[in-house]
């Protein structure tokens, strides 16, 4: 075996590295190509009341009837996104306790004019046993005694509440027939998806509209809604009004 010269050694090391990179690129290329065929729609939810970002516990808000309240919990499910002819069967649990609430959806490039999502959890997932991720029952959005998800949860306090400790507790659930509180939230908004780029749509969630929308609710009358039925359904009829589009970015 002859001794390698300094130059040859360097060359060999370089070749090995090149080989390694080549193999790496070859192995990853199908995934790379696939990812590159799609673009990303990023949906960002900002939760507000009285025109301010919602801060749990510390801040006080008022509804359209002059009733003051604080918010301890505000959570809801959004899923089954429909964009053009694509259905994306993923869920996001929007939670006011989080810094940011967003979901990235992979889409075919092109121009879109509308999109929609289901506020709540589809009926199949309410009857199919133990789920994971955002739908894990550990997220405290699940009724055990009458199986099903809580689709929308608002908890807080108000001096106008006649309930124990002046509490507000709205657990809006139910997925069967006339008890179904899930609602499809629709938006008309032109946006464009470009291969390999991110288009961001900012959605404003205005809690003021839960009290005064299609239907009106005074804390003094309805501080509690803990079961399925007509009150839950009337509250659900206000869901669409909570949402508006604040901004649509160009793909970047």
């Amino acid at each position: 075996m002859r001794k390698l010269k300094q130059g040859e050694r360097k060359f060999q090391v370089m070749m090995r590295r090149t080989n390694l990179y080549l193999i790496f690129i070859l192995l990853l290329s199908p995934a790379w190509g696939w990812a590159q065929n799609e673009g990303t729609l990023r949906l960002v939810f900002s939760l507000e009341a009285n025109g301010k970002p919602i801060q749990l516990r510390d801040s006080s808000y008022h509804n359209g009837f002059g009733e003051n309240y604080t918010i301890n919990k505000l959570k809801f499910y959004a899923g089954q996104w429909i964009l053009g002819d694509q259905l994306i069967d993923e869920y996001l649990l929007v939670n006011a306790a989080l810094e940011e609430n967003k979901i990235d959806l992979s889409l075919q490039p092109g121009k879109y004019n509308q999109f929609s999502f289901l506020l709540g959890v589809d009926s199949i997932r309410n009857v199919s046993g133990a789920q994971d991720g955002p739908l894990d029952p550990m997220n405290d959005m699940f009724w055990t005694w009458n199986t099903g998800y809580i689709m929308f949860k608002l908890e807080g306090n108000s001096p106008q509440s006649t309930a124990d400790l002046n509490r507000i507790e709205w657990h809006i659930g139910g997925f069967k027939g006339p008890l179904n509180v899930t609602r499809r939230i629709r938006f008309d908004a032109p946006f464009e998806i470009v291969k390999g780029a991110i288009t961001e749509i900012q959605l404003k969630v205005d809690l003021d509209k839960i009290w005064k929308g299609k239907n009106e609710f005074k804390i003094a009358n309805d501080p509690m809604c803990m079961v399925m039925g007509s009150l839950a359904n009337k509250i659900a009829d206000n869901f669409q009004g909570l949402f508006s589009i604040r901004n649509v970015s160009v793909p970047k």
Partner: protein
Amino acid sequence: MKSITASIIISVIFIFGIALTGAEKNEGKGPFKPRPMKLEIPKGWPQPEKNVFDNNPLTVEGFMLGKRLFYDGNLSKDGQVSCASCHQQFAAFATFDHDLSHGVANTLTTRNAPGLFNLAWKKEMHWDGGVNHLEVQPLNPMTAPNEMGETLDNIVAKVKSDTAYRRFFVAAFGSQKVNMQRILKALAQFTGSIVSANSKYDKVMRGEAVFTAYELKGYELFKQKCAGCHREPLFTDHSFRNNGMPLNRFKDIGRQAITLNPADSLKFLVPSLRNAQLTFPYMHDGSIYSIPQVIEHYRSKMNTADPNLDPLLRGGIHLSLLEKNQLTYFIYTLTDSSLTKDKKYAPDNGIIMQQTFDNH
């Protein structure tokens, strides 16, 4: 030449590395291959509920993990109450001789614990049918303050920190990851595999035994008077019916609480008569102690003023005292001692059962 050899070696190492990364979830102990397990469907029985094991393929390892969880008192708040505390194998997985069962800290339930068997044929759980899938059933006893009284977060944390579970999770699911979904799926594999189909009645149907004259008369009476709700071979039609029980001290309205329909007032799930001899006391609140007393309820004690009383029960069930005895003896033929003694369902060595029975 050398660089080609080197590149081959590097590629092999690299690919092996990828294989290792892929196998990471198997903890490097070879490929993850749980042994499939088949739910035996007794001859002449209907198919089980379709979605019970659809997303939860039965395996020996999943069953074993589920069994371990079922017998683990540590899942409860005080470490004392396991699933098996109220679902005792010797009582066909009901609570033996208890109208109501005991939860943590000297609490009592408000309903009678049902026996657990043939659950794969059951569409809805609970006396009111509020639970629509076997997998999510355990969430109720786990979190109810008068049962196991624990939070789901704590249960996951406790199972995670119990190192003895690690190999069970690896064997059943391919990795050590502990989450609620895995716990619930494993429990469903265990409870959903408990089958009771080897009573004297079953042996008679298979031609391996014969009824006594008394039992045979009882069987004929059963077919005339009881089979409308307690349909063979499961001895329930899984419907909800108002059987003339009064509103009890817990104001338990049954099915109405789930459907919100006043027509469902005081309707409860028709229980299977299989193993009834072992699952006393009876009815949703355990308020009737013996089988003859249950029959007497249908003969003379139903609340016939209730407009929701099941049409099949209007006017009562007419039986002579002799017939009442014959029917009782037939119901005794539904006792399946091979279920209560089957080691497959008993805790394995190494599972320490909580000594809770003396509290009862």
